[in-house]
């Protein structure tokens, strides 16, 4: 036995009790965070209301108009009109998932227990995308069903087996999921609720209609590549875009924007002080 000059008692070795950070555990943690805030639940509920309520409203208006659909619109797209309003609530939701942590200081507690940091970002993206996809899929199925019921009075309704109908229903949920993670990545890059929400609203909601006021000779070259116009191609209808991308190409373009933003968010999270 060797004598030691250490004045302190020998340190206890941490008994880890199976403690370890895994991606699945961090996802579980982020789910707890997600479901335990009223603000996230309210914004998600608002998206459901927009999706179903506005889908019914626009279908009802179409059913009331004798002359059928506007150019670029179909029975399916009319019943899913709510998507473009639901994206506002979804964008706020995505932003709040991350900026809520920066504004309250919670981020420091979160990163202190996951010092590798990136697992937290992946978990937030997964939980946010998953929750948005499932609720919005249920909402878009409901919106389609109610919408077609209203249109059937004028025999304008589409059925699920019609070309593009199923793709549009699932597409609305996919579109909103990617919008949510784009907003989340924006929040992670900007770290400020107001800045991230305004940027999201500008890009997804303000710029697309504004481009219609510009000369078509040059907007025709790029409007189809705006994230909302590109992703929106998954849902029936062209919405005034002269040269629309094909549905899945459009969706891939929208995803590409999200991936670039997420990459930037991950880089900033790793590099910058919390």
């Amino acid at each position, binding site marked *: 036995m060797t004598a030691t000059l250490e*004045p*302190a*008692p*020998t*340190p*206890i*070795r*941490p*008994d*880890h*009790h*199976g*403690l*370890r*950070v*895994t991606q699945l*555990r*961090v996802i*579980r*943690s*982020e789910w*707890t*965070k997600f479901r*335990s*805030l*009223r*603000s996230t639940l309210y914004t998600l509920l608002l998206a459901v209301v927009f999706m179903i309520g506005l889908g019914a409203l626009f279908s009802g208006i179409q059913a009331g108009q004798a002359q059928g659909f506007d150019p670029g619109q179909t029975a399916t797209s009319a019943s899913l009109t709510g998507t473009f309003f639901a994206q506002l609530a979804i964008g706020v939701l995505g932003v709040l998932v991350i900026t*809520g*942590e920066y504004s*309250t*200081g*919670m*981020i*420091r*507690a*979160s*990163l*202190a*227990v*996951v*010092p*590798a*940091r990136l697992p*937290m970002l992946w978990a937030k993206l997964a939980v946010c995308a998953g929750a948005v996809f499932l609720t919005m899929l249920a909402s878009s199925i409901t919106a389609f069903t109610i919408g077609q019921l209203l249109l059937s009075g004028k025999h304008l309704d589409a059925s699920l087996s019609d070309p593009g109908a199923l793709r549009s229903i699932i597409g609305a949920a996919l579109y909103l999921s990617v919008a949510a993670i784009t907003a989340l990545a924006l929040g992670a890059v900007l770290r400020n609720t107001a800045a991230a929400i305004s940027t999201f609203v500008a890009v997804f909601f303000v710029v697309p209609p504004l481009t219609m006021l510009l000369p078509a000779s040059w907007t025709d070259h790029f409007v189809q590549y705006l994230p909302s116009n590109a992703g929106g191609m998954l849902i029936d209808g062209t919405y005034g875009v002269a040269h629309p991308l094909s549905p899945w190409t459009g969706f891939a373009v929208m995803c590409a924007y999200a991936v670039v933003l997420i990459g930037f968010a991950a880089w900033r999270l790793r*590099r910058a*002080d*919390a």
Partner: protein
Amino acid sequence: MIEVKNLSKRYGEKLAVDGVSFVVHPGMVTGFLGPNGAGKSTTMRMIAGLDRPTAGDVVVNDRRYRSCRAPMAELGVLLEAKAVHTGRSARNHLLALAQTNGVSSKRVDEVIDLVGLRSVAGTRVGGFSLGMGQRLGVASALLGNPQTVVLDEPSNGLDPEGVLWMRTMLKSLAADGHTVFVSSHLMSEMAQTATRLVVIGRGKLMADTTVAEFIARASASTVTVRTPEASRLRELLIAPDITISAGQPDVLHVDGLTAQHIGTIAWQAHLPIYELTVQQASLEQAFMELTSDSIEYRTTTSADPHTETVAS
């Protein structure tokens, strides 16, 4: 164990921490003292891996914290009160933190009881007082029963009972072999809790020593003598290197002699002594002497030095 090696942190023009090195040992409470703006919180954030050092290195339990597999078993931190989402309940907050490392929900309830928050565990944190926020922060630091605990101003906002509770808890953690590193600007609190002290001022290390040594080194002790023969005793004691000041007519304050020595001289001269008291310099005084040049935010009227360090 925490090893801080030549640690520096620069924020723009300002060097918040400037080449600081020290080691925090297990089995005792180490106090981290410094005036406001000295760099205490910045150093603690770098220990927890939240801020990236401009230069230097921090090692926690022989590892880099960022690459720990079980971070909550290694290090528990309370960095500022209410690093908490205000819309969440205390229990859900702790549960979310616990789940990242696989800490059981049973342990979550255990720490809630440990810090005395059971009755409010289900209510939203936004309504918590500063003291309750501190207790919640301590609970989150202890979730993984970590080897090393880092607490930034844990007594801030606690009532006297809470301060006592905190002191007892820190000492028992240290007695169990944990490494406990606690910052404070309340010197009196540290004097009763800490065994060792790390003192910084303006980002630089000023002392790394035991509490007892720190007081002894920073200030010699003064002996107060009460005697009706004050002027005669004064003549007997006076010598170079010894300063004697008189407060009241029958009181002398002697620097440079022990109480034993003064008592013997008085007895030999048959002078009656009514009181003979060693005035130990307080940790507060020692701290003020050491850091008087390094206070970042000086008040314009510096009549009372205490207001400078305690004001926040």
